[in-house]
């Protein structure tokens, strides 16, 4: 019977009409008949629930708890906890039997078709403190708050109850005509939501972050931002971390990794990455001023012609400084529609005073220029060449430029090679690539770095490697079988004794080999090689930012170590003889 006493304490008993003969005053318990008890209990329960509901409302005003928490299985515990409450509370005469089910949220963008569409004016939307106390003119956002405040003035106050009937869902539209949310079909279901939307989209941005001076219209947005501003780190594809957005952006724009990425993106669009001899020939033929090179190039495309290569086979201009075109990537692009762009951009080939220091933009000739360039730049010591390996994956001229541009660097070979090795090391790690070669990419690169520092000026590197072209012929099948491993397979029994030549040699080596392989084996190898690059690229987000360095290395650098290894076996700075001895 304690239930009854509790109820009586809150005067609820007074409201309950019915067969019971409850005393109207005092919490004196009296005996009730069974039926009376039953009815009483039902109504009791109902009222208790009303009380609970009422308390919920009050509680939610006073304490920011969710309604659900206040839906007790035991309403009386609730009642006791708010025991000190005044007895003047009105109760809801229409209690619900069950706690209302949790409100369902519509899927975003799909407002309830039965919902009532409410169109508030901008003034109403933006209005805060609509409820004003008449005594002190204090403004409140909610009526409930005002009512509670009125109690302090000893004014009559009334708290609104939760409506008993099924509440019709309300959706709100934006008053701005041009806004997409002006259409009732795109109405928003939440009043706070529409208010925030209106501020953000059509309102004035009054809140400003003092670190990055970004502006916000909604205070909560601003607060949320200031918490995280400056803590966010930006990671470039090359692996460098930045804490400042502006230095990150500037770095990214000039980063080599960007060039590679774009290269791979363009390779995605190319469908034909082969070096069909006819195609290659036609492309090369279209080049300006490369008569000598052309002959050699065409010779190159012929498998049998390869053995002719070597110091003699190449009727190249060994002093072709005036034609330094880092067209390394062009051979890759022979099937690439982008090549034409390169041609246009790089129609001006002259920069003789620059000498080998600056690789001008690629011309569209393929091999011959590569060879020339390599020759022209005696110092292959530039580490940036290694960076061009990424170009292998079908870069356009820019990447080639990027790699070749520092070909003229002198005396920095060793150090930079090591640096690049570490870059590719990290990139290799970032990628999920499987170096199927016997030697890991990292190991290869490190080896290269060890050996690399002294071989800087050997013009015969190229000739050596060219002579070497023949060697893979017997091993092309292995190339076919294994993309990444192919290059490494080429290593065969050859350890990377001449790794230095690889690191120092231009990418042209790689590309020559690639081309050779392409010709020998062409499509499958090339396509596979590129496919790797492609699939790595496809998973990256556009900016490649959030992906971090993950996709950064991508397919490109994967090849490099392989290619390096390949060249190690083949290339020899000492000339053809050394290679032949290896055979």
């Amino acid at each position: 019977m304690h239930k009854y006493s509790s109820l009586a304490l809150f005067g609820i008993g007074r409201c309950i009409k019915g067969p019971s003969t409850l005393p109207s005053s005092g919490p004196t318990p009296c005996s009730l008949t069974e039926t009376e008890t039953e009815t009483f209990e039902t109504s009791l329960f109902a009222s208790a629930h009303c009380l609970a509901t009422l308390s919920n409302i009050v509680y939610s005003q006073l304490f920011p708890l969710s309604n659900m928490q206040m839906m007790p299985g035991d309403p009386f515990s609730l009642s006791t906890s708010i025991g000190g409450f005044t007895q003047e509370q009105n109760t809801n005469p229409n209690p619900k039997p069950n706690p209302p089910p949790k409100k369902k949220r519509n899927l975003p963008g799909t407002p309830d078709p039965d919902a009532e569409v409410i169109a508030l004016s901008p003034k109403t939307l933006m209005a805060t403190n609509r409820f004003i106390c008449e005594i002190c003119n204090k403004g409140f956002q909610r009526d409930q708050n005002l009512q509670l405040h009125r109690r302090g003035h000893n004014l009559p106050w009334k708290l609104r109850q939760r409506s008993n009937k099924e509440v019709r869902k309300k959706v709100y539209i934006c008053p701005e005509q041009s806004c997409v949310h002006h259409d009732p079909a795109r109405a928003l279901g939440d009043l706070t939501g529409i208010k925030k939307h209106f501020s953000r989209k059509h309102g004035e941005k009054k809140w400003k972050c003092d670190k990055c001076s970004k502006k916000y219209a909604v205070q909560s947005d601003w607060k949320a931002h200031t918490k995280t501003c400056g803590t966010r780190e930006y990671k470039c594809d090359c692996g460098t971390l930045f804490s400042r957005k502006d230095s990150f952006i500037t770095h990214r724009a000039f980063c080599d990794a960007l060039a590679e990425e774009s290269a791979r993106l363009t390779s995605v669009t190319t469908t034909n990455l082969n070096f069909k001899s006819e195609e290659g020939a036609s492309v090369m033929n279209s080049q300006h001023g490369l008569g000598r090179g052309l002959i050699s190039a065409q010779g190159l495309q012929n498998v049998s012609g390869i053995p002719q290569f070597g110091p003699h086979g190449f009727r190249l201009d060994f002093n072709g400084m005036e034609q330094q075109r880092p067209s390394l990537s062009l051979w890759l692009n022979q099937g690439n529609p982008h090549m034409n762009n390169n041609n246009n951009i790089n129609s001006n080939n002259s920069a003789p005073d620059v000498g080998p220091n600056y690789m001008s933009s690629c011309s569209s000739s393929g091999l011959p220029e590569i060879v020339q360039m390599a020759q022209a730049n005696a110092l292959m010591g530039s580490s940036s060449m290694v960076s061009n390996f990424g170009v292998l994956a079908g870069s356009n001229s820019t990447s080639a430029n990027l790699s070749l541009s520092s070909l003229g660097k002198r005396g920095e070979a060793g150090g930079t090679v090591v640096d690049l090795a570490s870059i590719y090391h990290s990139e290799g790690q970032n990628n999920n690539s499987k170096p199927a070669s016997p030697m890991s990419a990292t190991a290869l690169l490190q080896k290269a770095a060890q050996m690399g520092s002294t071989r800087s000026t050997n013009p015969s590197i190229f000739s050596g490697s060219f002579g070497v072209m023949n060697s893979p012929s017997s091993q092309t099948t292995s190339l076919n079988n294994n993309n990444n491993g192919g290059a490494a397979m080429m290593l065969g029994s050859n350890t990377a004794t001449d790794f230095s030549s690889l690191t120092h040699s231009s990418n042209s080596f790689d590309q020559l080999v690639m081309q050779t392989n392409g010709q020998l084996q062409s499509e499958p190898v090339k396509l596979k090689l590129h496919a790797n690059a492609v699939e790595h690229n496809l998973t990256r987000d556009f900016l490649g930012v959030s992906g971090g360095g993950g996709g950064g290395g991508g397919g490109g650098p994967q090849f490099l170590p392989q290619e390096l290894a390949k060249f190690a076996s083949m290339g020899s700075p000492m000339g053809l003889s050394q290679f032949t001895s290896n055979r």
Partner: protein
Amino acid sequence: MDDGEKKEEWKWKKIGEELERERKSMQKTWRSRSRSSESRGGGGEGEGEGEGEGEDEGKWAGKVLRECAKAISERDSKKTQHLMWMLNEVATPYGEGEQKVAWYFLQALFCRATQSGERCYKTLTAVGRKNESFEAARSLILKFQEVSPWTTFGHVASNGAILEAFEGEGKLHIIDVSNTLCTQWPTLLEALATRNDETPQLKLSVLALPLPVPSSLIKEVGQRMEKFARLMGVPFQFNVISAFSQITKEALGLQDDEAIAVNCVGAFRRVQVQERDNLILSFKSLSPKVVTVVEEEADFSISTQEDFLKCFHECLKFYTLYFEMLEESFPPTSNERLMLERECSRSIIRVLACCGGDCCEIRERGVQWSQRLTNAPFSPTPFSDDVLDDVKALLKRYQPGCWSLLLSPPSGIYLTWKDQPVVWASAWKP
């Protein structure tokens, strides 16, 4: 050996001893000066450096250099020689700040005294060019921007002014006459891509300074810009301008529906003094919406020979600040800083030892540039509060306490290093 010869010998011996004594005393002086710089207020010995020396005790380089310059302008060869010799003993480009300043200015003074400025400059430039490459230039510029707001100050201010002038425009064309190698533009591209709902298209015509920039270098830069713009989703086109004479409506292919902005960073000082007003007029002929000018704050204009000393003082003051800034911004062993210092040395020689010729790096102060621009006529537009907030936020990201912003109505703002204005940025409307 007869008497005559003995006498000669004795005379030379005497001179030798005298020189030796002088040398020792000079060394002592220098040592005491540098020692006193360590023990601040410890009072270096002798030489009556007393007046107002307090905190300047360690700054021996400036004093000696000024003395030397004075000796040169007075054509006092003995004194010149002595001072130069003394400086040579203690100056080195690899030492601490004072020693570096001493070294580079000694080099310039020597060139001036021996009339070999032009030759020396050409040699240094050739050496510098030999080691240049895109990678080197890129790493130099980007590293400098990372450690110091010297350049980024101008970038942020200019970009802000340009973006505001371009508000609502769909076709943008920026004429970039500057020494930044386009490092200013990535942030602008990002802002264009993210700030507006409708991304406008941008054409960028660049005249890269200092001339001549190797065409391969600028092409490389251009390609990077194109790639980055593609990444940002901004329709972009890159053009190369090869000479000042090409800054005309026709040569640039300006169209009527394009909104034009001229961005001039570190460029004016490279123009021949008598050509500067013409350049401003050529800008006006393009009918730009805004012209942004950023220059370093110093006055190296020499109109007559007598002004050499004044110019020298200015030069010394400016570069001492610059070297100090470099020293404090970069880590102690920084290749980039060495490169920048070497670049300075070329500039210093050019200013002090090259008279005329086509090499030119006569800086002028903001107020002087303002005068020129006002005469064009252009009218100054103040930077908006948003832009100023951006600049302030930028400065906050660098070394605290050293950098600040100084407003200078009606035209322009200054970046100050330890309360000395060093870089001036401004925006102008026709």
